């Protein structure tokens, strides 16, 4: 049931991509996402696509799973493609009543959808190959310069870690409570919207109670182990940059250069 939902799920593995330092993975992903906006013709989009294929191959994550991450967003994709297809002015290819498809529209629709798909794929690849804990760790380190301006970076990262940690737990809990109420004859799948919202009360009340209980227990457990924030805290896994990260950075650098060249040529 609910526990089958994929939520930026981590796929344990031992590949080159998995072993990269999470910090470099975040920075490179951001660079990559920015560089997608350099692409303005089919060849550059193809290049970006090939690069993503390369990452998927190296990471060893089943293609089916990677593609599944697009599924929740297909409506947005479809809408985007349709709007670009019909709304872009240019030379008309087909006209059908007030709607007309232009040559420019086709190009825009294809490229925009490709851009969206790439964005989804690359960010899911990041979460597929990096455990949530490593991710928040990296975010904490990347944001640590902001401590100078009194931003509570460690606390924010800790909150994120805890929130992520409890997503599966709460999903499981929801599943359990839902089953318990179903067993008492509750019905979650019929009736109008107001009825359905009312039907959620038997799930939400126990869920909130258990969430608060868990939060309380966690706070006690942290206090019992003398947790007092980020100052002078050492970590079990020190992040360190290695040869892997240099190689990955190089490939992204080359990709950016190629995209820039495809856009502006040698002249710029």
């Amino acid at each position, binding site marked *: 049931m609910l526990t089958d939902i994929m939520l930026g799920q981590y796929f344990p593995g031992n590949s080159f991509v998995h072993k990269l330092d999470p910090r470099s993975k975040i920075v490179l992903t951001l660079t990559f996402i920015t560089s997608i906006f350099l692409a303005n013709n089919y060849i550059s989009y193809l290049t970006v696509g090939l690069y993503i294929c390369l990452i998927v191959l190296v990471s060893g994550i089943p293609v089916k799973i990677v593609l599944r991450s697009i599924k929740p967003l297909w409506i947005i994709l479809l809408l985007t493609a349709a709007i670009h297809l019909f709304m872009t002015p240019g030379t008309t290819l087909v006209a059908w009543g007030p709607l007309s498809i232009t040559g420019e529209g086709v190009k825009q629709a294809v490229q925009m959808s490709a851009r969206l798909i790439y964005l989804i794929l690359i960010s899911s690849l990041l979460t597929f190959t990096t455990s949530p804990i490593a991710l928040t760790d990296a975010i904490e380190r990347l944001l640590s310069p902001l401590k100078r301006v009194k931003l509570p970076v460690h606390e924010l990262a800790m909150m994120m870690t805890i929130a992520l940690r409890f997503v599966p737990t709460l999903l499981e809990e929801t599943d359990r409570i839902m089953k318990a109420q*179903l*067993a008492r004859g509750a019905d979650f799948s019929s009736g109008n919207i107001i009825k359905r919202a009312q039907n959620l009360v038997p799930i939400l009340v126990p869920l909130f109670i258990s969430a608060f209980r868990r939060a309380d227990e966690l706070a006690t457990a942290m206090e019992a182990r003398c947790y007092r924030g980020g100052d002078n805290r050492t970590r079990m896994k020190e992040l360190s940059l290695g040869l892997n990260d240099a190689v990955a950075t190089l490939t992204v650098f080359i990709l950016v250069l190629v995209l820039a060249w495809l856009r502006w040529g040698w002249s710029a």
Partner: protein
Amino acid sequence: MSIELQNISYTYMPGTPYCRDALLDVSLKIERGEFIGIIGHTGSGKSTLVQHLNGLLRPTAGTVCLDGANMHERKQALKSVRQKVGMVFQYPEHQLFEETVFDDVAFGPRNLGLCDEEVQQRVESALECVGLSVADVAKRSPFRLSGGQMRRVAIAGVIALRPEYLVLDEPSAGLDPCGRDEIYAQILQLYRTSGMAVVLVTHNMEDVARMAKRLLVMDHGRIRFDGPPVDLFHDETIQLRDFGVSLPHVTSLLKTLRTHGLDLDDTLQDEEVVVEAIRSALKRKRDSSC
């Protein structure tokens, strides 16, 4: 009149690296009026198995039939299945949500679309069944009760459905010995008076050995033993330890005494009877050695 599982298998999260087979080719028939204990270590598939009994889980392979009709054929059928097969989950007090005990117990009967008088009558008899006084608790908030009382309210919420089969998943988990004995006494009482079938899931051999007439031992998603508890304890070929469960203390005591030459019947279960038997066996031994 039975629940019948035919060759069912269940896999959690198929097609992902977290995929796990919880049940493998399990077949089982539960008749009305039986008292069945299901025992096995953590992760042996007990809870997954019982969730198939009222259609909360749909088997990956195989069929589940109630009174000869496949549960998953029509969606409407599931609602009546859930009325006939009541299910008490682990820590059932975590499912309480209403403002008063009365309303919480009434949740199930109201979902069945019963009239107010019938609901009232069912709630009162269900609360009595679990040993709570209607006058004392009905108007109180369930969250102000003690842990043991909350659990009983939650069990009453399922009993109020008047099921023909009652499935209880670890009903005594987290209770003190006193609360445990009370809950079990009430379950037994209910079983004897109502004639419903009871399926009791636990990993504590003491509990089932006393009550269940039929015992299932689960291990790695399969049923390893199905029969009366006495047979299990005296079948020398079965190594209970391999399944992560142990003999009841009484039985292992009797077995040990037998190996030391006391003439005892090791099928006895009731404590007082056992004490008496040991006493007379000791006396016989003393007499014969004199």
